[in-house]
């Protein structure tokens, strides 16, 4: 069922040279996920290093969101294994709570809780899951809000904020859990073009702080700028993994070339 390592594209295993001393933070081995007979993630094998930023690119429907949801255990995988720092997290029946504490996810559609203020959105999980005192949770939240230019929004409800502000609040909400890995799923796709920049700035800042990030994105120029490696998915399969300089100027696979030609033309 599982392929041996020799058959894999070498680049899927190789982590960037600057990071070789570290263990991979996330390791995926032949991860497959089906929805009613349709294989959405097909034998995906990938290592993600500590502090690495990996960008997932691929046409819509290629399985980027599903892969991220599997990493956060929002979807159980059907086959294959996932390790987080050498602990397998894909064991069926495993309590997902402790894993989700360590892996944050931010969605395309923000998914803030509309009946709570920004402050309550951010402090709910730290209070309930990390058992923080309300004062402590609030002070963490205030620090993070200030860091992302949202200090005056704590008492607002989400529907009073712009899309860009809402998405930044969603990022802060995930960060308040002090995750070791952040999964960002097309976090700028639902935004008006003029608001994309402010959210991408947050991602740059996160990378600057050494966060391990997996980012599904359609923003090719952003991926080229910040990614350590870029992974191209097609119909649920990893077609090619390469550093951005290689991926965007000299991709090895023909399918990658076709995809990039199509999206970069627009």
């Amino acid at each position, binding site marked *: 069922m599982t392929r041996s390592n020799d058959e894999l594209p070498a680049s899927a295993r190789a982590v960037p040279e600057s990071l070789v001393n570290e263990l991979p933070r996330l390791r995926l081995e032949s991860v497959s996920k089906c929805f009613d007979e349709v294989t959405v993630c097909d034998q995906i094998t990938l290592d993600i290093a500590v502090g690495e930023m990996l960008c997932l690119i691929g046409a819509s429907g290629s399985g980027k969101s599903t892969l991220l*949801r599997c990493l*956060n255990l*929002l979807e159980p995988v059907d086959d294959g294994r996932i390790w987080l720092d050498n602990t397998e997290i894909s064991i069926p029946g495993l309590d*997902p*709570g*402790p894993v*989700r*504490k360590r892996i*944050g*996810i931010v*969605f395309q*559609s923000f*998914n*803030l*809780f*509309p*009946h709570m203020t920004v402050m309550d959105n951010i402090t*709910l*999980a730290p209070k*309930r*899951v990390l058992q923080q005192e309300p004062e402590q949770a609030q002070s963490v939240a205030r620090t993070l809000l200030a860091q992302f230019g949202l200090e005056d929004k704590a008492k607002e409800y989400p529907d009073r904020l712009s899309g860009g502000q809402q998405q930044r609040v969603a990022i802060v*909400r*995930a960060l308040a*859990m002090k995750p070791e890995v952040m999964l960002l799923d097309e976090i700028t796709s639902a935004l008006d073009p003029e608001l994309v920049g402010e959210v991408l700035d947050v991602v740059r800042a996160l990378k600057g702080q050494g966060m391990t990030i997996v980012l599904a994105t359609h923003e090719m120029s952003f991926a080229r700028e910040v990614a350590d490696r870029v992974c191209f998915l097609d119909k649920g399969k990893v077609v090619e993994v390469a550093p951005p300089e290689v991926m965007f100027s000299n991709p090895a696979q023909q399918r990658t070339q076709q995809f990039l030609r199509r999206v970069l033309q627009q």
Partner: protein
Amino acid sequence: MTPRQRYEQSERRRSVIVAAVSLAAVGAVLAWLVPMAPGWEAVKRSFFNWPILVKTFPTLLKAFMLDVMIFAWSLPLIIVLALVIALCRNVRSAALFPLRVFGAFYTDIFRGVPTILLVYLIGFGIPGLGLPRPWNSPYLWGTVALVLTYSAYVAEVLRSGIESVHASQRSAAHSLGLSEADTMRYVVLPQAIRRQIPAMMNFVIALQKDVALLSFIGPVELLRQANVYKSLMANFTPYVGAAIIFLCVTIPATRYTDHLLAKQRAQRS
């Protein structure tokens, strides 16, 4: 005042006048036509008898306090029970499947039987078991019948509210590490309840009236008191008095519900 505001004000004044005039015209026509009916004098004597109304109204009002009390202590029970049933119907884990079945049975049965029938069956049936006081009170068991029926309806309203909360809200809560119970308590239920408050208000109004069904099994509440007076005085005016009292409560409640609904619709659009 801008010309536009002046125009709108005059339009408003005009429509108020038109409405008032047409209402007065309809009233006048009715006041002129109805007394021409052959039975009007008899109806007036037996339904709209002012002295009898004045004489019975205070006692009716006092009897209404019993309705209010039954209402006041059944409402919280209904809400708690409805919440429990709605949550039963919503459990996902296989181990708790029997709870789902129980919830479905409960709502099917208690929504399927006419309220008055349940009031009879439970209100007469259980005291018939010969339990000691106070467990033999039809007042108690009649209220239980109301609670069972209404909690089944309210549970369904809550359940559809829970299902209307988008799956992405659950995903977001889970992704933050919240447990199933916390996700329900802090994320799903508050949104579900808020969305369904107008629908639940309709059941509150209906309950307010259905308390009168207990008059058939014993407690001397408003309707039964009116009934006593009717027999005593051979006159239907006490029923009209009872209707007035019910309307005084239900009309404001209905208006308020409509107001809530309109507000919600405005928010959603």
